[in-house]
């Protein structure tokens, strides 16, 4: 079972949601990707207001409804709107079958507004997929680095965090979280630079690395190749490509 922990369904100009979903599923079929976790919405909104946060989650729900056996929803939460985020978790995870939480770039990960979200994630056993990047060209002011995620994770030792993009600067990100066992780096969101997966397995272990693509902006292929093209064992590839994520998400 191959499960992608990290996609966003964002149509091309003029393309409908259903067309984008079909195009995405066709690409997954060609590469043997069984399921994909969908988050955010139909576009990137750096600082979503309450209305936009509702709309973006509704977009993901309607995406999942197009192929419920293939798409898994993650609830897009915002520390700027903690009460609304808790409502959205009830609506989409407790009653709607979403199996994770997504945090993006509206605030740094260690923002206090994330605490209520993480406490509820712990109660429900939901993994929290959190954006991280370290850009030598400069992060956005509210864009988290792996250090911000480590701070949040230490406040919530009973939550499993998926560190999106392995910190972007993956050689730094992997080392930053090496000794924080409930942070799971994902594989996605940068070029398929050789050595990534081998280093991740060496530093955090195959049991803590999770396949993700960051499609539809990224190619499934370029991110999948980081795992299938790595010099690691087939058992390690199976863990990374799906077994680890299946273990992290509630049934």
């Amino acid at each position, binding site marked *: 079972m191959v499960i992608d922990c990290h996609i966003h369904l964002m149509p*091309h100009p003029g393309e409908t949601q259903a067309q984008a979903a079909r*195009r*995405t599923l*066709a*690409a997954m079929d*060609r*590469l043997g990707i069984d399921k994909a976790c969908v988050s955010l919405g139909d576009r990137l909104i750096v600082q979503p207001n309450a209305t936009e946060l509702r709309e973006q989650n509704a977009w993901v729900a309607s995406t999942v409804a197009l192929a419920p056996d293939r798409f898994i929803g993650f609830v897009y939460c915002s520390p700027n709107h903690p009460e609304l985020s808790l409502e959205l978790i009830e609506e989409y995870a407790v009653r709607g079958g979403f199996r994770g939480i997504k945090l993006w770039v509206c605030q740094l990960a260690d923002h206090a507004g994330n605490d209520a979200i993480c406490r509820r994630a712990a109660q429900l056993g939901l993994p929290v997929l959190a954006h991280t*990047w370290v*850009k*030598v*060209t400069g992060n956005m002011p509210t864009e988290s680095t792996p250090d911000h995620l480590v701070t949040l994770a230490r406040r919530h030792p009973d939550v499993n965090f998926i560190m999106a993009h392995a910190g*972007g*600067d993956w*050689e730094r990100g992997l080392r930053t979280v090496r000794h924080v066992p409930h942070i799971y780096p994902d594989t996605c969101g*940068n*070029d*398929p*630079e*050789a*050595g990534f997966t*081998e280093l991740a397995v060496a530093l955090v272990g195959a049991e803590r690395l999770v396949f993700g693509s960051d*499609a*539809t*902006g*990224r*190619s*499934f*292929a*370029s991110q*999948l*190749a*980081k795992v*299938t*093209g*790595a*010099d690691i064992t087939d058992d390690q590839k199976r863990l990374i490509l799906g077994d680890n994520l299946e273990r992290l998400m509630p049934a």
Partner: protein
Amino acid sequence: MIIDSNCTLGPWPFRRLRHSDAAGLLGLMDGLGITQAWVGAVEGIFYRDMAAANEQLLERISGHEDRLVPWAVVNPAFPGWEEDLQEAEQAGFVGVRLYPNYHAYDLADPRLGDLLGAVKALHWPVAIYARVQDERLHHWHMLVPPVGFAGLPQVVERFPDLPMVICGQTWQFAQQFRGLFAGTNLYLDISRCEGVAGVADMVQAIGADHVLFGSHAPLFYLEAAVLKIQEAGLEGTAREAILHGNATRLLG
């Protein structure tokens, strides 16, 4: 048959690579059914002395010239490039690679025009590298901006028949410059073509006859380019053109 139009050999200065010598690259190629790879010297990106970089490449591929086809790196903004090009021709290279951002010139630079004229006279192809590495991941004290392509239409207009490959561009770039490709020898490689089935979008924009299989190995996982072709769902003549037909035609 697959020809990889975008490989390099030599130690990358910022990270240990597992397959940066001839044996390593050939091992990767064998595992993925790659027949031939066009290679350039990593040192050509960073050295001042291009002749030395190109000489190192020839030493590395010695005995494997049937599968590792050498392209010379030339810097038109550095004195003596004419001699570097002449030496490359005599030494058995087949084309020229350019790194305008690392070598600090742009597409409007008249020295580039002089070089392209000389390359055309040799009936050689030229490859222009848009990016070697994502700028966000550059070394803290070596920030190299991407190549600007605003001057590309003028270059293509001046050298319409010159076989020219732009390495490391996207399907969005293909859409932006789609009007330039018809009737020219202009190509894009797929090494940094992203998006869901992005290669199919690139083909839709400029036609399969202008797209080359290129992996950017060993800096990138070679398998990524193979899977991109699979992801795009291309079949028949379009697939064959990208995998080897265009490359074969390009080298004449």
